[in-house]
């Protein structure tokens, strides 16, 4: 899988659809939200794939789980292309 569409550092909200990206940093201002994201497996170094975009929100796949999250929250998750292609 090529990752040419992924900017070196972008947010999950801007990540290309269907491509696995690696989470580099969570910077949500509310600590409990950031903790919950990490506990759900959306922690630094985890692979994540945005699979659908809706009306102000999106569906992502982390591990084998589908998670719905809004674009504001996705904007607080920094991602980058993984070193090698993989599935989230």
């Amino acid at each position, binding site marked *: 899988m090529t990752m040419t569409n992924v900017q070196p550092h972008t947010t999950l909200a801007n990540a290309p659809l269907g491509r696995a990206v690696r989470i580099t*940093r*969570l910077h*949500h201002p*509310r*600590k*409990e*939200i*950031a*903790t*919950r*994201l*990490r*506990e*759900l*497996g959306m*922690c*630094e*170094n*985890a692979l994540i794939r945005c*699979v*659908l975009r*809706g*009306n*102000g*929100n999106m*569906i992502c796949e*982390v*591990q*084998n*789980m*589908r*998670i*719905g*999250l*809004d674009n*504001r*929250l996705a904007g607080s998750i920094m991602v980058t292309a993984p070193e090698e292609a993989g*599935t989230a």
Partner: protein
Amino acid sequence: MTPPAAGCRTGLFRTVRKHPAGALKARTVALVGNPNCGKTTLFNALTGLRQRVGNYPGVTVEKKEGRLALQDGIQCTLIDLPGTYSLLASAPDEQIATDILLGRASHTARPDLVVCVVDACNIERSLYLVSQLLDRSVPLVIALNMVDAAERNGITVRLRVLERELGVRVVPTVASKRRGVEELKRVIGQGACAAGKSRQWRLPEPVQRECDELIGLLDEHHQLKGPDAFDEAAALLATDTADLERMVRYDPVLRDHVRRDHQRLEFLGVDRRSVFVEARYQWIRTLCAEAVSQEPRNGDTLTHRIDRIVTHRVWGIVIFAGIMALLFQSIFTWAALPMAWIHDGFDALSLLLTRIIPPGDLRNLLVRGALGGVAAVVTFLPQIILLFLFIGVLEDSGYMARAAFIMDRVMGRVGLHGKSFIPLLSSFACAIPGIMATRTIENSKDRLATMLVAPLMSCSARLPVYTLLIAAFIPARSVLGIFTAAGLTLLSMYGLGLFAALGMAWLFKKTFLKSSVPVFLMELPEYKIPSIRSVLVQVAERAYSFLHRAGTIILGASILLWFLASYPRMDGALPAQRLQHSYAGLAGRFIEPVIRPLGFDWKVGIGLVSSLLQREMFVSTMGTIYNIDNANDEGGQASLRDRMNSDRDPATGLPTFTALTAVCLMVYYVLAMQCLSTVAVMRRETNSWRWPAFQIAYMSALAYGVTFVVYRAGLWLGLGG
């Protein structure tokens, strides 16, 4: 099967080893796991009970208990705990689970054994909670559930590797098919169920060093030891430095030490907030690399293909609206025939009693009082069954979570997030589970706002009121060739409830429940074909509950109402005059000046007062008083709706009910808080009388105000005739 695991090191294990047969005399066994991993299905399979299950996170929001009979005759108490992703609870339902697991709950003793249900399709995420339980030296067995789904998805789990690395027994199960349940019972009954290997994950060396120092200080200054001290140290290292000033419960020496720790770790470039979770996941990933393998997926999954349509920004809303319209339309069309059968059945019974029992008070009491009131309500049973059938299918299929996803934007506009939509949707069935479902909402103000507006959603108790009035007063007219005026009127009543709920939530969130912008974050489960058994069990329970109320509260209240509407006796007077001068008539006329501006007369007043207990009492009340009012009608040949339709004011000759009165009554019932059970649940969930009192006050004012406006507008438009 794999032999018993090694690594049993706790006090409990020592107790176990002392038992002569080597069997665990567990008194209490708790089921725990991530939301939607099949805990309740497994609970039902283990206990033979029929707790409600659903295919969306947050179905279980309080602990449920059942008896677990093990193969050697040992009886245990099995507790089904609300789902949680972590022992660091972030919502009230998770707090219940964590408190019980860690022995902090005053009402429940710490479980002797914990069965952690792990979703075989989501092992990595589930092991996060498992690793926390291991760190706490909780005696543990793992039920690796839904292994059939994992197999279908090309996931292979090496059980022996998992057992070896975790140090606990792992039992593969498919709870929905009862596969592995007997083996799990056997393992629970064995003495090998003890705590596994704790703290296998490793922190980076500088973090571990700071952590150890802090644990020493916590022991010295606050007498905290073991896992409690470690968790506290981890929380202190992860917290914001600015927050330390407010943590006055800690010794100043300790706070200074933490401040210096923060500086050192930041200098070393360590992200204090993520390092603990990341280290744990690092270990989990290493473990999963050895224990779990997954075949590469070819193409999109069925769930993805369905999601592409049902969560689409346009089609998603169209489908959601279509499902709702179908639901309300079917309630009218599909239920008509069975309702007619029930009505005919009660008529036949009424005729039989009329023939058997000689005329007099006893016959009147049985036929006009008891049977009249109960029949009026029981006739609506098919509609209640259809409503719960639809809701059950939506829940079990996995669509409910998608409804929350679609509605997130709408909810966001009123200051709530999509998660609030599930409690509101559940309130279509009943506000009580709806209010309890708010326990999944993390933010307390969001939760309170959702609880305050949940009773505005039209529950099943309102359905008999709506359908009686619609059938009697809304013309049977086709709309657009596929809908009927009756179906659309019903839909609009549900729409009004939803609109009022969102409007009030917006008002509350803009005023006294202001909080930060809500965040939508929710697991979306895989779609599955609804389990017929699960849906039917839920429907049967609701139908039984409806009939039970009809046979107890409504029967009793109908008899009482018959007495109040029949006495004092006025021999020789017309039935309408007798009713008007009865005790019930006096009560109705007493409140008539208050409700007259809404277009309601004293007969409606009797219905409004009697239905303060529960809303469907309005229908039974009408059934009773119109039976008495039509004393010449032997055996109830005319239906209640016909009697209401033909009722006229003796003084003016004008009809008592018009289409406008019917609409006003429905609007009143949409908005008024006429349910004592909901008040009691609000009291329990908010732990005060303040919020239920506020809820009654605002809903009463809203109901009165809106009904008044609708009535006046109707009169002005010339619809009052």
